């Protein structure tokens, strides 16, 4: 049969950000795959060398829109290690709280995207609607929905009071119920399972040798999690399990992420109930003596690593960022081979690609409102927020 090459990307409905996957296909079967990057390289690493540490904190936040907290935490941790700062416990707990909320929001977002790639739009709408709950919680804590800007060198910038705690617990209670429903749906709905089971196989040995990270690695049966292996922030004191699955396919990646959601709920409840008292931050000097540090962080997509080298001034000599998605690309090529064309979006989505992380570019959303568009307040008035109104019955 004749082989043809189809370009998936840089602009393609399955991709939310520009990347080019070039598929060589024979009929409906993928014979070869190639990934080209660089469609929006921003040169953040170069830029970071000309900015001060505190400016870099906000720069690293803008590496990614979804896991913005993971990059700042990773950077702040590294700088604190260089300075030898001891961050107060309450600060570490709050940092962990936002990190876990971010994980929930990212995994719910991913679940919706995966469902959409599989053509299951109803599930997509459901998960994204529930994701609003966790976005609201993040807004309650930090004042922002996307770039929380809660980290600072030496701690966090905002504290939590009791009314906020109550609202967080309410939201988590609601999300717990919904996640139970999604677990059921994602693992039993016949058409969805038919699309995910046995697709995008990544055997354990391959996953290890290709240096896959995060849920992709754990779905291949490797219990590797930076939160357990190399505990940072408050993770050494939190009760949680590393979630793995051993079927090595897309379904396993779904299962791992749903399990992680449940672990995150557990952790958040623990944090809220055992929040230590005291300060949330310490003051940090501006100049940093010469040194170097490797900071690791388990982002929602996997291991995030920053290497920072300081040179005695208030600007870093070198900042190297490796976002989790880049680590998963070699494994993705392996997964795509001998799959079907129909599985390209699902397999690619299963690593939860965040291309802007890997390429470090800026995404700008235009928010011009037209006269006819319902405002957020109007929607809230018409459709009462479910986690506030407990009597509201969710139509299933």
């Amino acid at each position, binding site marked *: 049969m004749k082989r043809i090459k189809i370009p998936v990307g840089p602009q393609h409905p399955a991709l939310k950000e520009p990347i080019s996957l070039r598929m060589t296909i024979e009929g409906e079967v993928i014979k070869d795959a190639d990934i080209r990057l660089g469609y929006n390289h921003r*040169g953040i690493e170069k830029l970071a060398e000309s900015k001060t540490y505190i400016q870099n904190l906000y720069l690293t936040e803008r590496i990614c829109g979804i896991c913005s907290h993971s990059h700042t935490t990773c950077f702040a941790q590294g700088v604190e290690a260089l300075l030898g700062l001891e961050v107060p416990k309450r600060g570490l707990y709050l940092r962990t709280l936002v990190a876990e909320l971010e994980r929930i929001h990212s995994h719910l977002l991913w679940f919706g995207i995966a469902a959409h790639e599989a053509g299951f739009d109803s599930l997509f709408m459901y998960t994204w609607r529930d994701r609003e709950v966790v976005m609201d919680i993040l807004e309650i804590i930090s004042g922002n929905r996307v770039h929380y800007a809660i980290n600072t060198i030496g701690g966090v910038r905002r504290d939590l009071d009791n009314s906020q705690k109550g609202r967080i617990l309410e939201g988590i209670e609601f999300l717990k119920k919904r996640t139970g429903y999604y677990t059921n749906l994602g693992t039993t709905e016949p058409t969805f399972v038919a699309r995910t089971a046995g697709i995008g196989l990544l055997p354990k040995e391959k996953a*290890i040798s290709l*240096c896959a990270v995060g849920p992709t690695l754990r779905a291949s049966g490797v219990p590797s999690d930076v939160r357990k*292996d190399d505990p940072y922030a408050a993770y050494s004191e939190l009760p949680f399990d590393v979630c793995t699955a051993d079927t090595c396919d897309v379904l396993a990646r779904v299962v791992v992420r749903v399990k992680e959601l449940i672990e995150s709920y557990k952790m958040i409840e623990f944090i809220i109930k055992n929040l230590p008292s005291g300060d949330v931050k310490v003051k940090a000097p501006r100049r940093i003596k010469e040194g170097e540090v*490797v900071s690791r962080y388990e982002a929602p997509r996997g291991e995030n*690593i920053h*290497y920072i*080298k300081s040179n005695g001034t208030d600007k870093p000599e070198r900042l*190297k960022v490796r976002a989790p998605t880049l*680590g998963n690309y070699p494994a993705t090529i392996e997964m795509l081979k001998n799959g079907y064309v129909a599985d390209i979006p699902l397999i690619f989505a299963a690593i939860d690609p965040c291309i802007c992380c890997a390429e470090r570019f800026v995404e700008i959303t235009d928010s011009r409102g037209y006269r006819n568009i319902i405002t957020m307040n109007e929607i809230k008035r018409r459709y009462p927020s479910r986690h506030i109104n407990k009597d509201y019955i969710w139509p299933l």
Partner: protein
Amino acid sequence: MSQQLADRINEVLMGMVIEIKVPAERRIFLTVSADNLLDVIRKLRDDFGFYHLSTISGVDTVKNFEILYHFANSQCCITVRVVIHRENPEIISICELIPGAILYEREIQDLLGITVKNIPDPRPLLLPDDWPAGNCPLRKDWSYQAPEEKIPGEKK
């Protein structure tokens, strides 16, 4: 605990280690020479279980280049440092040992202009295909010059 691991590594890698430091718990910095790189990585991988390459960072120290291989396993994160000359920046590819290193090596090749020998796929990764040769953005002596804007049909 990391100190013990560092001591054991020092023992196993007999003579190949130039410097070994333990700046913090679960962090080891190891300096080796470029000739021993493959042997060191093979030993680390097979004897100590450092299968996972987190990333490769390249640093321009003005005098020369440093290439740092960040490995991790469940106990420790080890950084293998290799110093190479600025005049003839060349390093051997570690893809035969760690196949997942390919993208990081391509990135170093692009951004620092270091030639990676035996690399299975030498195409540029991040920079465009028509990027002018000899421009390595992460080198300290490189600064960006915006090309002069030309509008077709403009008055001379």
